């Protein structure tokens, strides 16, 4: 072969030398991440594999702070020469920015807080390594699920996804952090068609399913095959269902939609880099600027927190990608906004320490503020209690479409299925439902949240932010919840 990169284990001492080299070059701070990710993805259609791929992705990224300016460079080529070149490139970038910025070296020393150095080796729990299960056995749930025949069903698609990520982080503070994390996800999509209409039902969630940390046990827990007949029936039911009527309604959102509602309207809104205008070019800003701390953004029963330390949640880690230890952060307390998600740099500008909310999508991207697992505190009761306590409303389940404005205020969600509720009972299915609202007004109408019996950890695998866009996995613990006076409507054109 034409290139001679080094194996990962022999490359680590070179990275340690690179940290020393950067110190000698006068950087104020530097960190390096070496990441290796083994992944497998499968897409099946009607009992046949459409795409199955195996991927090994390895590389390292170096971030440098020099005279108050950042530089970042990354490469997949693990050689001594490349490590030096990438370090020089990151430094060159930082110097070029420092030259045109107005920060003096004296003030730039105060740009970030220092962490105490740590040496840590962490392995997230994984009961069954998915990569050692024979392929046929590994694929069998989605091959079986997508093979279920029903003349009226056009297609059944299935998705499987496994990752094993090994990450080594070292920095000029003297930290050396090694983390190994497995993640697994799966989902099924049933597409029903008649001459005029197409309807989709998904399990356990739309957009390729649910993603969790852990191994093959996560796929077994989902019990996909057992659930396919139910979602086939619902997809067929939707073809005959009435359109969801428009109007102001009491709405019960299923747990997975509460998860997405948290994600779009609260999770992104409390990222401090957005609040500081740093993401304006692509993702936008937020209505929650620092002067809004303490503002009421929900009813008294709405309590939302970030927790990167939940075992098995897809957004979990022990240390973030700046070497800050993961910790629980209260975001909304009794309906009031009390904390942002922060990085070392953004927190420092408000005189605080980072709350450990920084991640990068793989070795090739610069770390930025990301949600970990943003969760709604459970209250009490079951979904059936919420339904029984509703005179006239709609239960909305499984997201179909999502859209929100640049300030995370004006949102609209389309759903796979609605269930009409009359006098405490579900009366009929409704198709093509959507609902819309303005974030604080919407959360202020929340008058019931189910208890811990209904609380479930959901996981999205493709939350986009940054430029170049970084797609990352984010977890949300949620239960079904009820909202009053919500604008509900069919798709009006």
């Amino acid at each position, binding site marked *: *072969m*034409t*290139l001679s*990169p*080094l*194996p990962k284990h022999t490359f680590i001492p070179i990275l340690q030398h690179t940290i020393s080299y950067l110190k000698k070059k006068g950087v104020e701070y530097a960190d390096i991440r070496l990441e290796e990710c083994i992944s497998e*993805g499968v897409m099946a259609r009607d009992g*046949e*594999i459409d*795409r*199955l791929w*195996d991927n*090994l*992705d*390895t*590389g390292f990224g170096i971030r440098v702070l020099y005279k108050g300016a*950042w*530089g*970042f460079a*990354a*490469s*997949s*080529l693990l050689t001594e020469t490349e490590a030096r070149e990438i370090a020089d*490139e990151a430094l*060159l*970038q930082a110097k*070029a*920015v420092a030259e*045109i910025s107005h920060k003096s070296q004296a003030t730039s020393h105060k740009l970030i807080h220092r962490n105490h150095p740590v040496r840590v080796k962490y392995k997230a729990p994984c009961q069954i390594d998915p990569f050692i299960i024979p*392929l*046929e056995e590994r694929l069998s749930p989605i091959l079986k699920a997508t093979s279920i025949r029903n003349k009226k069903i056009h*297609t059944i*698609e299935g*998705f499987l996804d496994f990752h094993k990520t090994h990450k080594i982080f070292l920095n000029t503070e003297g930290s050396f952090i090694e983390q190994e994390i497995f993640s697994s996800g799966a989902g099924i999509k049933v*597409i029903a068609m008649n001459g005029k209409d*197409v309807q*989709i039902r998904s399990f356990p969630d739309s957009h390729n399913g649910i993603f969790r940390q852990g191994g093959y046990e996560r796929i077994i827990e989902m019990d996909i095959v057992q659930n396919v007949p139910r979602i086939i029936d619902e997809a067929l039911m939707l073809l005959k269902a009435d359109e969801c009527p428009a109007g102001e309604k009491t709405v019960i959102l299923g747990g997975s939609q509460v998860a997405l509602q948290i994600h779009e309207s609260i999770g992104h809104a409390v990222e401090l880099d957005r609040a*500081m*205008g740093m993401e*304006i*070019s692509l993702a*936008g800003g937020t209505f929650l600027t620092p002067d809004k701390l303490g503002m009421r953004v929900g009813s008294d029963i709405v309590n939302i927190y970030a927790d990167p330390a939940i075992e098995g949640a897809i957004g979990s880690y022990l240390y973030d990608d700046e070497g800050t230890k993961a910790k629980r952060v209260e975001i909304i307390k009794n309906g009031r906004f009390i904390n942002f998600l922060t990085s070392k740099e953004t927190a420092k500008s408000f005189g605080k320490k980072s709350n450990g909310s920084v991640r990068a999508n793989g070795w*090739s*991207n610069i770390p930025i503020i990301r949600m970990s697992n943003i969760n709604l505190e459970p209250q009490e009761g079951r979904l059936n209690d919420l339904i029984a306590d509703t005179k006239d409303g709609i239960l909305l389940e499984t997201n*179909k*479409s*999502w*859209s*929100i*404005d*640049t300030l995370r205020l*004006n949102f*609209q969600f*389309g759903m796979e299925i609605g269930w009409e509720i009359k006098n405490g009972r579900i009366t009929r299915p409704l198709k093509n439902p959507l609902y*819309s609202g303005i974030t604080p007004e919407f959360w202020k109408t929340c008058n019931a949240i189910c208890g811990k019996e209904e609380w479930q950890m959901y996981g999205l695998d493709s939350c986009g932010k940054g430029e*170049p866009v970084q797609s990352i996995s984010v977890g949300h613990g949620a239960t079904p919840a009820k909202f009053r006076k919500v*604008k509900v409507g069919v*798709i*009006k*054109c």
Partner: protein
Amino acid sequence: MLGRDRIVELLKNLTREARKNGAGQAEALYIGSHSSTARFANSAVMQNVRESDRTVYFRVLLDKQVGMASTNSLHRDDLRRCLNKAIAIAKQTRPLKFFDCLPEPYKYTEIKTHYSETANFTIPDKIKTLKDIFRKLVPASLKQGAKIKVGGAFSTLEAEIGIVNSNGLTAYQPFTSAHISLITSSVFASGFASQFERNAKNIDTEKLLSVAMEKTILKQKARKLKPGQYTVILEPAAVNEILEWLIYIGFGAGAFIDGTSFMRGNMGKRIMDKKITIYDDGNDPSGFPVPFDFEGVKKRGLDIVKNGVANGIAYDTFLAKKCGKKTTGHALIPEDIEGAFPSNVFIKEGNYTVEEMVSLVERGILVTRFHYVNGLLDTRAASMTGMTRDGTFYIEDGKIKYPVEDMRFTESILEAFSRVEAISSERQAFPVPWSDIGANIVPALLIRGFNFSD
């Protein structure tokens, strides 16, 4: 950049080794890239990133069993492990009834797709360019009496793609591109401009700044409009957001097979106004030409919507064989599960300037761009929703009057594109999300009765 000879030699060796190890047919695809992006916000450079990566993708066939694997480690052991993994996957998968052959060799058109000016455009060069933009904002702010800030991103890419298969197909092409976007904002309004080029020397920051500033310096507070149906002029950036979703939900073979595409059941039927023609052409020098797709199939033209009539769908070899069709040369990288998409899409130009289009509007709205468009509401009707951003203005009696607050549209794009009254002669290039090497080429549209839902 490794260059043609080293890449082709590497891929030929690997495909030979695959055959020796039991593969009936073998394909190796190499993608190498150097990219760098300078991000800026609040009129200061905020983030610089540079990435250098190279990945080899293997696809092997054992009769009708297919295996795929990829690695970005060019270490000998990792490449062999990856190759053998693809063979092992093929051995363990069920044979596919329809797929038995990789593409045959082609003779490609010679196209210039690589410019040294872009390849050699460094981060310090970008920062100098940005410094110049920041400097020019100062007099504009003074003139306006309000501080104007700029944010955005400036990226360049140098990439090379090589493909070799055991049928004798050999393809290689280097590429470059440069993309800049600017958002200028004051307390009154914000404006946007962007430019996408193969050659970085064509980036005209002066013009971009002037376009964005023109929308920012309307010194009036934005007014709120009632929801309802308005005549709109969608500028190219707004049209491109919609086009991306039309491609994603409608023009690819995956959605067509699923039955979720609005094209299914409508081939040969009118689905838009006859003024609308949407085509893909990887050979058109007025776009971002690309000689072949990611499995080496030669690019040729595809009429997708011709004079408003649904006409063509993009296929790769795999999905084409599944449907008994021929590939149209639209394969993406092998691990993209969503299948074939057109990556060189043009909306045919009209013969108006945007100013002339504005003069045709008695009462309406000019939209610079959209935010967070989603086209999954009802894909059979191409129903979409999204918010306006960075320059939304009320038009009265053929003139732009004042900025308006951002609004949400919810609209069937098939219906909206059936009410197109005028198309601009000037078109703009935009990057496409599923391929680093193609571009959409898009005009502005004047549409009657566009639905703003809230």
